[in-house]
C-alpha cells in the first residue's frame, strides 16, 4: 500500500466518520436523558433531508434557507414524537418503550413511502459544497471538509450549553436521576422536550449534509446510517457527547480501513460495525468514554 493510497483511504474515513459523529450526537443526547434508543432517529434524519429537498425544489429556497425550515420541522417532529410515543410510557417496562420506538420508526418510514413514493430522488448539491479539492494525491469534495468542521463546532457549542448553562445543568440532572431532578423543581417534561428537539434538529443537519455528500433520497435511507450511528454512540460511551464524536470517527475508520487492507472483505462491510459493537460491549460495556453505572437494587 502506497502512502498516497493510505492517505486517500484515511481522508475517506475521516469524511465518513465525521458524518457518523454528527448523527451519533443526537442519539447520545436522547439516550442520556431517557435511557431510550430512539429508533426513529434515523427516520428523522431522513425527513430532514426530504424537507430540505422539497424546500429547494418547491419553494425555491436557497440552501441555507432549507436548513432553517428543516430544523424547525424536525425539532417539532422530535418533540411531537416524544409526547406521543414515549412520554405515556415513561413508567412502563423498558420493553414497551423499545417496541414503541420501533413502531414509531416503522410508521415514519412507511408514511414517507406513501407520501414521497419509493423511488429515489436526486438532490441538487449547492455549488459551495460541490467543489473538488485536490491535496497532493488525495481527492476530496468540499462537503467532506465542511462536515467535520461543522461537527466540531456543534460539539463545542453543545459542550458549552451542557456544561455552562442552566438548561444544560438541568439536562445533566435529569440524565442522572429523573425523580431527584423533579424534586429540585426542574420542569422535567420541558427539559426532555428540549433535548428531543435538539437531538432531532441535529439529525436534520446530519440528514441534509448527508444528502449533499450522497445526493440521493429514499424513504429508507436512514435505516442503516441510524443503526450505525447508534453503534457509534454506544461504542463511544452512550450519554457522553464527546464519546459520540469519538465513536463516530472510530466507526468510520474501522469500516473503511479494514476494507483498505483487506479488499476481499468488501461484501462483509456492514458486519464490521456490528462486530465492533459486540467487541466493545464485551470488553468495556459502558463504552470507551462512558462511566460505569451501578444498578441500584
Amino acid at each position: 500500500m502506497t502512502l498516497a493510497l493510505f492517505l486517500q483511504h484515511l481522508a475517506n474515513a475521516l469524511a465518513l466518520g465525521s458524518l457518523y459523529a454528527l448523527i451519533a450526537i443526537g442519539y447520545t443526547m436522547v439516550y442520556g436523558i431517557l435511557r431510550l434508543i430512539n429508533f426513529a432517529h434515523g427516520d428523522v434524519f431522513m425527513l430532514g433531508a426530504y424537507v430540505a429537498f422539497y424546500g429547494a425544489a418547491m419553494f425555491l429556497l436557497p440552501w441555507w434557507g432549507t436548513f432553517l425550515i428543516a430544523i424547525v420541522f424536525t425539532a417539532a417532529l422530535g418533540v411531537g414524537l416524544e409526547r406521543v410515543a414515549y412520554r405515556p410510557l415513561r413508567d412502563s417496562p423498558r420493553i414497551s418503550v423499545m417496541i414503541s420506538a420501533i413502531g414509531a420508526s416503522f410508521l415514519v418510514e412507511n408514511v414517507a413511502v406513501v407520501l414521497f413514493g419509493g423511488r429515489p430522488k436526486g438532490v441538487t448539491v449547492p455549488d459551495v459544497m460541490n467543489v473538488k479539492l485536490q491535496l497532493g494525491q488525495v481527492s476530496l469534495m468540499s462537503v467532506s471538509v465542511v462536515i467535520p468542521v461543522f461537527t466540531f463546532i456543534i460539539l463545542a457549542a453543545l459542550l458549552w450549553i451542557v456544561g455552562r448553562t442552566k438548561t444544560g445543568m438541568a439536562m445533566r440532572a435529569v440524565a442522572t436521576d429523573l425523580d431527584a431532578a423533579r424534586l429540585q423543581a426542574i420542569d422535567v417534561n420541558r427539559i426532555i422536550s428540549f433535548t428531543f428537539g435538539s437531538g432531532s434538529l441535529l439529525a436534520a443537519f446530519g440528514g441534509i449534509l448527508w444528502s449533499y455528500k450522497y445526493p440521493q433520497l429514499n424513504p429508507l435511507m436512514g435505516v442503516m446510517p441510524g443503526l450505525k450511528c447508534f453503534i457509534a454512540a454506544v461504542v463511544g460511551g452512550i450519554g457522553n457527547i464527546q464519546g459520540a464524536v469519538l465513536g463516530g470517527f472510530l466507526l468510520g475508520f474501522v469500516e473503511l480501513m479494514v476494507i483498505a487492507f483487506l479488499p476481499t472483505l468488501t461484501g462483509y462491510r456492514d458486519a464490521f460495525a456490528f462486530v465492533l459493537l459486540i467487541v466493545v460491549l464485551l470488553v468495556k460495556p459502558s463504552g470507551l468514554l462512558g462511566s460505569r453505572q451501578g444498578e441500584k437494587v
Partner: protein
Amino acid sequence: MKRTAAVLLALAALAGCTKSQKQPTTVKLGVFEPMTGANAAGGAMEVEGIKLANALYPTVKVGGQEYKIELVVADNKSDKVEAANAAQRLVDQDKVNVVLGSWGSSLSMAAGPIVKGKQIPAIALSATNPLVTKGNDYYFRVCFIDPFQGTVMANYAFKEVKAKKAVIIREVSNDYSVGLAKFFSDSFKKLTGDENAILGELNYNTNDQDFTAQLTTLKSMKPDVIFAPGNYTESALLMKQARELGITAPFLGGDTWETPELIDVGKQSVEGAVFSTFFATEVPITETSKQFLDAYRKQYNKEPAAVTALGFDGYLVARAAIEKAQSLEGAKIRDALVQTANFPGAAGIISFDANRDATKSAVIKVVKDGKFTFLTTVQP
C-alpha cells in the same frame, strides 16, 4: 370486547365494499409485481407498460366472443413470503388465466411452484436469473437472460473500449448483479485470452451509499474499464464518487441503469456510462415499438423505461397466446405460448427457446449530454 368486535365488523364491511362485480365475459390477467418495498420502482414501471397495453388492446376474441381483459394487480411487497401469498391469491381466489411478472427473479421464483401446480402460465418481464424458467414448464420470459447480457458487455469492453484489464464492482446481495458479473468475467477472460484480465472483484451491499473505500482500492488497480452491474439506486452514487476520486476509466453496466433517476442523481458523473438494455426509444425496432412509444409519450409526457416496454410486450404475448389457443384454459394457453415465434414486440422480436427464454437482440446505450443515447444493437 364489544369495541373489538365492532372494529372487526367495520373492517369486514370495508372489505366488502371493495369487491368488484364479476363479469361473465372477462379474461383475467394477474399482475404480480412489487408495488411497495425495495423493488417498488421496477414494479411500477412494468405495471405502466401493462396498463398501457391494456388500454390499447382491452379485448380478445375467443370462440367468436369478445372478452374483456381485466387486470388484477397483486402487490408482492418485494417480499418472498408475500410473493407466494400474492401468487396463490391470484391463481386461487381471483382465478386469473395468465400471470404477468414479477420484477425481481427471487420473487418470480417464489411464484414458480404455485403457477406450475395450478397450471397457469406465467410470463416474467425483466427477470434475468436463469433459475426462473429452469425446470418450470409454466414460466416464460420476454427478455434475454444474464449469460447473453454478460457476453454483450464483455464484447463491448474488449472490442470498443479496447480494454485489456477490468475490475468488477458488484452488488453481492443481488442475484442479478452477481450473475451478470460472473458471465461478464468468463466472457472477458475468454476474449482477452488472459486468465488475469479481471484485476479484482469488489463487493457492496444493497442500500449502501458510501463506496469510497472500494473505489479507492479500485483506483489503485488501474483498470482500463469498470464493470458495475448493480442497480441504479447504488450505481449513480458509485459513479459520482468514482469521478470525485479522480477515476477516469469508463463504466459499463446492465439494463437496471436505464431509469431517469440515474441521471437525476448522477448528473455529470454518469456521462459516458455505457450499458446494455432491451430497448431503445430512438430506434423503434418494430411497428409495435412505434405504437408503444407514441402512446406512452402521449400519456406520460416522458420517455419510457425499458422494463415498461417489456411489460407492454408481456401483455401482448399473453393476449396473442390466448387468441391462438382459442381457450381460457391454462394448459392450452401455455401450449400456445410455447409456439410463440417472431412475435413483434415493442422491445424486439420475441421467440421462445427450449427453456422458454426469449432470444432477442440487445441494445447498447450510452449516457450523452444527460440523456440515454442509442449506440448500437447486438444480435444474439
